[in-house]
């Protein structure tokens, strides 16, 4: 199989997945009870003509398939419709909030990678020893802390008690934003560090016990070199696979952290929009998360053979 054909195949599968996701995302709104127009009215007395006009303005008077076609045509041109609650283009509403969530995900992702990989590697190299146990117990304890509890504890200690970090808001400018995102990133990273740490450890342990590692060691190669070239490089497959899942997980979990820290990201926007029946926004965010997930996983699929040559030869080599 040539690389080109493989990439083309992946791309086809990706587009099909996205198409199916768009159907699911769009039509699921008709399963939710409630009328978007009654949300727009929010308990006020409308004139009957106004109800009809507002319904028509948002295209809610059309049959569902036609609404879908209109929506899809718009989405393909980058137009996600208009938010019912903000009376603004959805792309504008999301665009305003995306940088916060991306910043949060990037910072949390970096923490997860650094802490998770370090913990996993340290544990695997000390398998069965006190350090291994300590890391495992530490990870298990961290894994038991839900994001919202983590947020509350972090705010209580570092924002309210010590006053080192702000307790809400995303700041202005690059460095201020990073400063504001430190606590939220930690709260978001905690649960996922466990996942990466444990996968890294078990993957490394598996490789450490393999024949070629023993051979390499018996040939007199330095331990550091063996671990870098043979153990870590071969362990990276499962770690990457988990990382792909992490991306979607981080985007979704960010809603809790964003709410706790008063951050205007797409996670908290999603929660608010679901509650307010702001369908255009919900559809756009869900589609965005699905796309991010599918694309990241496709990229990992394509990249994996370059990092781990055995993957290209087929799963059998594992």
């Amino acid at each position, binding site marked *: 199989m040539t690389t080109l054909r493989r990439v083309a195949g992946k791309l086809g599968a990706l587009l099909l997945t996205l198409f199916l996701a768009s159907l699911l995302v769009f039509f699921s709104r008709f399963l939710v*009870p*409630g009328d978007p127009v009654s949300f727009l009215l929010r308990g*006020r*007395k409308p004139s009957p003509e106004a109800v009809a006009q507002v319904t028509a303005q948002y295209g809610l008077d059309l049959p569902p398939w036609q609404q879908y076609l209109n929506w899809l045509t718009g989405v393909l041109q980058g137009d996600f419709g208009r938010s019912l609650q903000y009376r603004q283009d959805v792309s504008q509403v999301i665009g*305003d909030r995306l940088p916060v969530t991306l910043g949060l995900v990037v910072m949390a992702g970096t923490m997860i990678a650094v802490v998770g990989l370090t913990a996993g590697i340290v544990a695997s190299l000390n398998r069965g020893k006190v350090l291994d146990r300590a890391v495992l117990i530490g990870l298990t304890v961290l894994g038991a802390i839900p994001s919202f509890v983590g947020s509350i504890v972090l705010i209580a200690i570092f924002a309210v008690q010590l006053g080192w970090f702000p307790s*809400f808001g995303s700041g202005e400018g690059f460095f201020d934003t990073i400063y504001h995102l430190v606590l939220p990133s930690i709260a978001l990273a905690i649960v996922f560090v466990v996942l990466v740490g444990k996968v890294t450890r078990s993957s490394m342990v598996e490789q450490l016990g393999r024949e070629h590692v023993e051979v390499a060691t018996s040939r007199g190669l330095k331990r550091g070199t063996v671990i870098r070239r043979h153990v870590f490089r071969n362990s990276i497959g499962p770690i990457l696979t988990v990382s792909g899942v992490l991306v979607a997980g981080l985007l979704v979990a960010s809603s809790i952290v964003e709410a706790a820290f008063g951050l*205007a990201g797409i996670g908290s926007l999603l929660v608010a929009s679901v509650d307010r029946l702001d369908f255009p926004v919900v559809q756009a965010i869900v589609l965005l998360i699905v796309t991010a997930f599918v694309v990241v996983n496709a990229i990992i699929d394509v990249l994996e053979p370059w990092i781990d040559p055995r993957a290209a030869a087929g799963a059998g080599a594992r």
Partner: protein
Amino acid sequence: MSPSPVMPARSTGRRVASLVAAGLGAALVLTGCSGAEPEKAQPAEWELTAQTDAPSGDLDSFTWANYAEPYSLDYAYAFDYADNMVLANVCESLMRLNPDWTLSPGLAESFAHPTPETWVYEIRSGVTFHDGTPLTAADVVASMSRHLDPAVGSSWYSNYQNVASIEQTGDMQVTVTMTGPDSQFNLGMGGSAGVIESAATLAEKGADYGNSTGGVNCTGPFSFGEWQSGESITLERYDGYWDPELTARSAEVKFIFMNDANARTNALKSGEVDGGWMIPADAVPQLLDSDQGDMLFGLNTAVNNLIISDLEGPLGDVRVRQALLMALDRQGIVDAAVKGYGNTTDVLTTESVWDGASDAAIASAFGDIEEYPYDLEAAKKLVEEAGVAGEELTYVTAPISSDFNVYAQATAAAAEAIGLKVNIETVTPNAYTALFSDPTAREGVDLFYTSWYLSSPDPLEMYSVLRTGEFSNYGEWSNPEFDAVVNEALTIEDPAARSEKTAEAQQIANEELPWLPMFEAPVTLFMGERITGVAPSIAFLYYPWAATIGAR
């Protein structure tokens, strides 16, 4: 201004306490509570403040905690606390609703009422919009006409429902013609229904008018600065503001959206934020003890009620409604839900909205009424007489704030104590909101809770809602005598004469209980140690309160 007088709000026995607030030259009245049991341990002590100390100087900036992000700053959609508390400082109305809940001229210098069907407004000259262009009669016509445009779908349409035409009748004169006598139209012009925006801006911004990118261009003491979506709105002092009395004392004010009640309380307690309206009940005692600023109580127009939304069920019998009200330990609810900072009431309006009422009207509206003291035995008897013992009621609630649970549990306990079964249904806040606009959402629902505030200085606003067939008459209650009284009152121009008719309507509602009145509570406000000058009142929805805030 000197420190303003405050009034005792808690007393035993029903009485009317009134006191002239010197700074404002107007009377604020509040009813003492009647249902308090004498042996009640340590009732919450509180006072209403009409006006805080005048600032010692100007400020560069202060921050304000807003419990939610406004949906829009378009006055046509500004229908909730979050929108109006910001908009009130940026946009002005034809009339001005003052902190003591009186109306005075606003962008209309004066108004005339030559026939029962016409209102003639003389527009103030020398007023400019924030972009520097002068206010004209054409702007007034364009702004008001939007409420009649179905494509806009204005939230304030009901104020305009009897309007036949809005026309410019002079250089600076606008005439509104009604289809019939309507005493309420002009009273509504002090709220967002009377806001005036530049016609050019409305045309230029189109659908983006009032949203976070479009912004607004009005005549208020502050101009729209920046709206950081999901986080904050910053307003800037407008140097060309026309009214020297209300020129902003702070160069800037920043509203921060803090949906989380704990986060808001933390920020106020730590001094991270300078102030906020509508303090969560749980936080009131904490903030009273805080040395970061003052916890204040102000005039309100809201009454906390149970809406009876099904008169086909057991609650269709007035005896059952009376029984349920008598089985509710309303003082207990006040203590649990608002930590004691409220008074039980038997009527659906507060005395604060009876501006211009005659003494006789006040006496009959608040004195000559049925009281429903906590009395389980009498209540049980009424339920037995009605023959509905054992029947089931559905009460819908939502996790909106901690007090919602108190109302639900207390109502269920009360109903069960008198032999009715109660099924509490918890729905999402959005589904709860739909109860107020969507009749299908109310199917099979007997009861839900609301805090209902009035936006004009006339109690008729409350009672016009309960007429047969009205949009917000959720239980479809119908009483021809009541309808006739309210309809007649609506045509009476003289406030004193009108108030006597309104008092009759209040007495009927008090006997018939289409909604069950529970209690009234003051508006709550926290003002940090850096700032002063605000007038604590629900007028914060329509009056440029932030302009008066300066350095302490």
